């Protein structure tokens, strides 16, 4: 797992809990052209943060979703 993947996972677990990896894998698979989550690089962060913000709204409240997206975006 890349260093950036670990960081994104650690941040997401704080909000989404133990199923965060599944959630992130789904985002990279469907919105980053089938990218494996473990192969994430800094270049993918802006696109990933955008889709995390959108998808997380279905799971947590809008405020938390926006905050998570913003935190991930700062890793880029």
């Amino acid at each position, binding site marked *: 797992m890349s260093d950036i993947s670990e960081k994104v996972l650690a941040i997401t*677990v*704080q*909000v*989404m*809990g*133990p*199923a*965060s990896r*599944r*959630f992130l894998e*789904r985002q990279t698979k469907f919105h980053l052209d089938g990218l494996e989550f473990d192969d994430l690089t800094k270049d993918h962060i802006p696109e990933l943060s955008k889709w995390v913000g959108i998808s997380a709204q*279905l*799971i*947590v*409240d809008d405020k*938390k979703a926006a905050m998570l997206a913003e935190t991930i975006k700062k890793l880029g």
Partner: protein
Amino acid sequence: MVQWYHSIITKLTVAFVILILVIAGLSVLYTFGATKSALKETTQDELTALASVIATQIDGDTLATFQPGDEETPEFIQMRDQLYAMQTSSPEILYLYTMKQTSDGIAFVVDAEYGLSEDSAGIGDVYDTPTEEMKAGFQIPIAEDEYTTDQWGTVISGYAPVKNAAGEVTGILGVDMSATRVIERQDFIGNIIYLIMLIGIGITAVIIGIISKTMIRDIRSLNDSAEKISTGDMNVLVTVERNDEIGELAGSFSRMVSSLKIMMMDDSP
């Protein structure tokens, strides 16, 4: 729904009100006791000072000459009027009188109300139950330690020696203050203390009630979410945000719910 008597609000409020009652009760007991004692000491000091000042105005040589039957003499009437004027000049003073040692005991000499009141004492009327303070009044200005009840009512008295021109003690001057006035002062202070305690308890109960209500509101919100999930409704959002233990619980609960949702999304066709 939890019964009101099992509610955390009720338990917290009752617990804190009991705590405040115990603390305030003990404080009131101590404060009231100390205030009562201080008030009594102040009254005793006032009486002693008053008796000392008035005693210096009394002619000790003339006082020594009065014998039973002298009540109509100009000297007696002059001294009685002098005492009466002093007695009526201060609302604090109930009775003013002079006494001296006789072979029968301590007897009245000039009573400020002699001839003006039915139950006043004449020259030579022996005081039946002289106290130690009354006897000590022939040596030093002093006040009674306790209230005394006699035919003139319940009073607290102060005494000071009356001296003649040679500086010899020829009698004592007695000042009586009504116990009612002192008790009224004590009651007033006691009522103020009780009032402050009641206001304090009221304010505390309201503050605790408000704090408990916000706590219980958030716990109920979490409980409602758990209830929905337990019935299969995953359409819940945990919106509780606090910096305390309830906030931590809400955070953990929120992560658990989020993960459940993610897993259910994956399992859905």
